[in-house]
């Protein structure tokens, strides 16, 4: 039986549900102007949180691919998480633009160094960057570490090194940063959270 798309909906409208009609062997021939398939239907959904204000809205991040080894995930859409009891699916004008933050052309892509007096950045490897930084830190720590103060009290601090911590990083980043800083004897550190 030849049934056009329009006729198919007419039959359904007469009282039977579409799916049972299809089960009975009727199905419409493909339409000329089909409704575009939902682009997120085959995307992978990941629960995350908006990094902006402290409402910390739940978000759903949609990526291409299914997390299999050869399918590199690419973020294609971010929206509010309707299950989250605080934002219940909503996002504000800041959060609604999250995709443009993730995809910002101003994202840093590789380590760089600006040498003293230079007017430009130079790309370097991670290993070079972290080795140079570690050497600077060790030299400064060994030169300026104070083991005892004038009164002879053990104070074990490194006052010539400072660190400002992000308040958009995870708790785990914050904790590990703190643990490492204290072990080095650092004291001059603070966070965006207190400004």
């Amino acid at each position: 039986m030849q049934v056009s798309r329009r006729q198919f909906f007419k039959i359904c409208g007469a009282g039977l549900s579409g799916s049972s009609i299809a089960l009975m062997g009727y199905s419409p021939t493909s339409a000329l102007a089909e409704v575009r398939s939902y682009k997120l239907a085959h995307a992978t959904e990941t629960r995350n949180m908006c990094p902006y204000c402290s409402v910390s809205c739940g978000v759903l991040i949609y990526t291409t691919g299914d997390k299999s080894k050869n399918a590199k995930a690419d973020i294609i859409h971010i929206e509010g998480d309707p299950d989250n009891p605080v934002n219940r699916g909503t996002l504000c004008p800041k959060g609604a633009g999250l995709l443009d933050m993730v995809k910002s052309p101003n994202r840093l892509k590789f380590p760089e160094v600006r040498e003293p007096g230079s007017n430009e950045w130079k790309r370097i490897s991670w290993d070079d960057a972290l080795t140079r930084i570690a050497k600077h830190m060790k030299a400064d720590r060994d030169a300026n570490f104070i083991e005892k103060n004038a009164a002879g009290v053990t104070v074990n601090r490194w006052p010539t090194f400072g660190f400002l911590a992000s308040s958009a990083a995870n708790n785990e980043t914050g904790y590990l940063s703190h643990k490492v800083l204290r072990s080095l004897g650092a004291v001059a550190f603070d966070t965006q959270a207190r400004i």
Partner: protein
Amino acid sequence: MTNHWVDIKNADLVLIMGGNAAEAHPCGFKWVIEAKKDRKAKLVTVDPRFTRSAAVSDFYAPVRAGSDIAFLGGVVNYLLEKDKIHHDYVKNYTNAGFLINPDYKFEDGLFSGYNPEKRNYAKATWGYQMTEADKKTGESWVKVDPTLQDPNCAFQLLKKHYSRYTPDMVSKVTGTPKEAFLKVCEMIAETAAADKTMTILYALGWTQHSVGSQNIRTMAIIQTLLGNMGMAGGGINALRGHANVQGITDMCLFGANLPGYIASPTEADVDRKTYVEKRTPKALRPGQMNFAQNFPKWFTSLQKAWYGNAATDKNDFAYEWLPKIDGAYDTLAIFEKMHQGKINGFVCQGFNPLASVSNKKKVGDALAKLKYLVVIDPLATDTSEFWKNHGEFNEVDASKIATEVFRLPADCFAEDTGSFTNSGRVIQWHWKAADGPGESKGDIEIIATLFQKLKAMYAKDGGKLPDPIMNLTWAHRIPTKPSSAELLMEISGKALGDVFDPKDKTKVIAKAGEQLAGFAQLRDDGSTSCGNWIYGGCWSQAGNLTARRDNADPSGLGQTLLWGFAWPANRRIIYNRASCDLAGKPWDPKRTVIRWTGTAWAGNDIPDMRPDAAPDENVMPFIMTPEGVARLFAPGMAEGPFPEHYEPFETPLDKNPFHPGNPKALNNPAARVYKGDMEVFGKAKDFPYVCTTYRLVEHFHFWTKHAKINAVLQPEQFVEIGEELAREKGIANGDRVKVRSNRGFIKAVAVVTKRIPTLMIDGKKTHTVGIPIHWGFKGLTKPGFITNTLTPYVGDANSQTPEFKAFLVNIEKA
């Protein structure tokens, strides 16, 4: 927040002051609308600008930036004068009846014990009157007058202190019309009824002042007088900045604190015993929980988390390895030291201080004195290019700046797994969706790899005190890439040996190696480890509780106890014992948070009380204070036990109207001001306009200028001025203007608006200039000036949060 976002819907009155939730926290603000719609709650907004929060308010009152204590002190006076307080609550749950040292004085704007040279107070006279120590037990208690009549009790002193804050005086100092002020008082006073609550939503509009902490303290006095603490729909609610600003505060990335708000050892704490004794308080009233008496357990468990087997009772649990601080190490103090050339190396992890810290010129000059700077960030920040000439937006000569700058690409939220803690203290796990761009790495991997390199160098070559580096616990499967799961388990707490029930020493409550159920299981004998005691139990034997996603809300109050994990102990409303009367019956049974069932405390939250503390034991609700009660009189504050109005450091007035004869009481007498910064405070004769900085709904700090859609929505820097000032200065809407302070200038487009009213202050017309902060020389927006070029280098006397909300400028057509 003492309460949480969804709980706002339970309020009868919402006060927004020192914040603008509708624009800065739009998705949290929906709960205000819900309260209005479903409970017929009223919304009151008090702000120098007619904000979008004001636009949907039932009542709006203008106020001069920097005069909040005058306003709120006036509210305290109104409540006491009209006797609109919650009497049973004040009498039992606050220190109203506590007797204060008779030598405590407040004269001519200064409290007793002031040292003008050092700009600080000796606090000896700010204490309580104590009973003679018991000969046998040595116990001594605060003397209390339950009738609240003794002239030296906190309640009478409070009354006396705020009697000066009359409606006329309030109006004179704040510019709020007297009728508007009285209308706000009247609405607030209605919540003195036991079954009515007000919530206060504030943000940086209260903290970024030289009297920031006391702004909040004044509100805390109001909320305790009204009996609104611990109630559903009540509390003191700081709407904070970033998504994990609460969590990073809790981890205490701050020289003066160890994780969980444990005060760092100082040079005066010569050994562990001295340190621990000084920080372990004794109860001030009989039978109180005095929860901070557990300090030795929290601290020892932290040292065990960091140093494991190398921290034992034989070596004072490695106390010696902890650095001992010798003074202030807040952001302003750090940049001051850097400016003096005393800091050589510096790391900015997801922080853009050139834009976020006061007086951009000083910060830029300080960075130029560093030997090396490391910027770890997902974005190309302004700070990372402080050395580069960006025309008038950043006038520097790169060839003269010798700082070696490293810029390391970090992953952003979408590329990382871990937990964030929202403003309502709810810790929520989130999952990585994709890799970051190019060679970017997660922050944890960057810090861990750097640390491993340092450790290898110390192992090979030795150096100063390698022990804490070599012995730092690092039980990670991949040493250069610890997982967030491993770290959160360490933060939450583990049994290192078997942990026994204190009531039955033969009963094991946690076996060696298990995750602990909470901070109640911590011990000070080395048998437990815990990286942050307030997060104790967030990853228990039951698994990662922060990853829970059951949004069931059986009580209808919005508590959702199975969604994530709230610290402490998954408690959603802290001080919730105060939501019940002395007998344990809820002040408002329709909004029962907890109640006494006859055998235990139970209900719709985790009780903030020993579960079996029967009401007749008289254990009071404020368990974190040794008093057991809330403090109307708070001796711990830097500038006085009662908040007093002081003018901002840049004020349009030449005197403090409360103390016209005492120049020492013009500004916060205990605020720290560095040499060179005092000299560049502007005077009203040169800079006649009050300036305040703020945020827009389309932008988030200095990030979204890098996001295309937000850059399109708000592309260009602007300043807002009122119509009257525009007329006086011949400035039309859309003109380019130059705004100057005594530290620099910015240029921007003028928006002439009715939203910024002109106020009458002390008989003088006073105009306000408003500046959104979001621009800089890096980004997809049109390049703009860094707003903090203008701001003064001074902070709150307690927290050192900079005074960004009230300073002086001049304005002219550019």
